[in-house]
């Protein structure tokens, strides 16, 4: 514990040593300088006239959004169904692909270190790239439509599900695995009877959690042409029909809240 002596020779307790104190100050100084530098770059690239106008633009926007054109909701049921399908089928496809990848990436089930690093690379690349970017690429490749959205969601989900799942596999109890292996079971049998039952609850929880996130993500995929309610949102924004936009916002808000509630309930029931 850092103790210093006062001029009268009395020992004084201090939280930090002088060196640690100065290092702390230095870290704060560096952090604040970095922040100010970044702020300067942004401020140079900003048209401040527009920012000063923001309050007026904001109130204007709200006045255009209210009252919402509720009758427009009838045209939204089909796009909403598409959005739910993109999220659900995309999650299912992503899980199917993530499952083997996770087993290859976990240290205790991976057949070879080289394959393990390959699987980890797949997981990292999938995680770093947002589903909207995947959708953008897939729309140019597959053409606009729900299929591009489903595959985009699936590709993004591989990384998320794969990462959490391989961490769960690495944390399993080794005793059941050893017991199964001791009976003379083959490698696949060990996986099926020793590893799988231990990770199934975690797996179900992760899948539902990702489904809930995917609902949120799939609402915007239409902005780049990948189907769902985002297409309607894009059309309404481009035609400046803000009273329709507010209806879409309300629907998205309700859907996401419900899906979050379902996912929380399911995870609560499993764990």
């Amino acid at each position: 514990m850092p103790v210093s002596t006062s001029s009268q020779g009395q020992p004084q307790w201090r939280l930090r040593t002088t060196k640690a104190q100065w290092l702390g100050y230095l870290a704060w100084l560096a952090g604040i300088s970095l922040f100010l530098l970044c702020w300067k770059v942004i401020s140079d690239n900003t048209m401040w006239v527009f920012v000063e106008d923001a309050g007026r633009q904001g109130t204007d926007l709200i006045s255009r959004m209210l009252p919402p054109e509720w009758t427009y909701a009838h045209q939204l049921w089909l796009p909403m169904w598409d959005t739910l399908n993109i999220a659900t089928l995309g999650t299912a496809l992503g899980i199917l692909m993530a499952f083997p990848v996770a087993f290859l990436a976990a240290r205790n089930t991976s057949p070879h270190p080289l394959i393990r690093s390959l699987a980890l690379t797949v997981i990292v690349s999938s995680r770093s790239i947002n589903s909207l970017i995947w959708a953008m690429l897939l729309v140019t490749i597959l053409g606009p439509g729900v299929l591009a959205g489903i595959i985009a969601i699936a590709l993004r989900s591989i990384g998320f599900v794969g990462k959490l799942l391989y961490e769960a596999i690495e944390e399993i109890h080794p005793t059941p695995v050893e017991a199964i292996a001791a009976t003379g079971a083959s490698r696949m049998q060990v996986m099926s009877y020793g590893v799988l039952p231990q990770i199934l609850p975690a797996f179900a929880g992760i899948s539902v959690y990702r489904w809930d996130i995917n609902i949120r993500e799939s609402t915007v995929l239409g902005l780049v042409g990948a189907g769902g309610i985002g297409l309607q949102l894009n059309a309404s924004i481009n035609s400046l029909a803000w009273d329709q936009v507010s209806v879409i916002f309300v629907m998205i808000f309700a859907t996401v809240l419900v899906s979050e509630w379902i996912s929380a309930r399911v995870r609560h029931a499993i764990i």
Partner: protein
Amino acid sequence: MKPIEAALSEQRQQDAQAGRWRRRPLIQSPFLRLTLWVGLVVYLILALGSVEVNWARVAEGAGRGLEFLAAFTRPDFISRWDDIWAGLLESLTMTVTSTVIGVALAVPVGLGAARNIAPLPIYWVCRGIIAVSRTFQEVIIAILFVVMFGFGPFAGMITLAFATIGFMAKLLAEDIEDLDERQVEAVRATGGGWWQTLNYAVQPQVMPRLIGLSMYRLDINFRESAVIGIVGAGGIGATLNTSINRYEYDTSAAVLLIIIAIVLLSEYSSSFVRRWTQ
């Protein structure tokens, strides 16, 4: 144990003695299991039936897909380097400023959204802020802020800061709600006021996680900053979008590789920081 479960487990025991062992299903009740399976099949038929696929278009695009994959073997960093660099600089600065501002604003909201230290009206207001900020995708928020603040990184910064508030405040509030009550009580017993309790009992308990989460959010904000450029909120997303629309896949591959590299780097450094704070 409910009667049905007792009967089931007895059945299992008899089966096991007869040498017919079966593994335990994840969902115990057979009725629920059957309903879920039937529901799944019905849903899959309905959903797959409503997906329209234009196979001619897919076949046409397949060549382009291969071209894109091939572009990853020869990424072109040079010919559009000025655009890439400008986008990258905007993305990185946006990430730093939005995380700092977002975390600074998330702390009071998070305190207000913790039921054990905030009064009920404030609790509901803060929970409302969190719900709104978390429900909407960053891109949707970006559209609104671009309309308000004009094109450019300022709108992007505000968007990411807003999204950060919801994320950080929710996790911070949950953290505060399950902190160790004994320490709070101890500080209160010495006569400490609300601020002193916060400073000496709550803050030391949540600080390591707060730092870890901020690092994590920095990472997320960078990833998101690559996306909100699509709707005009600045950053590398605009560069990426342009390159894809022009079918300049070599440049897109270069941008994607840079994004992956930076995410990897920040993930590695954030795990280092988290180990150091705990």
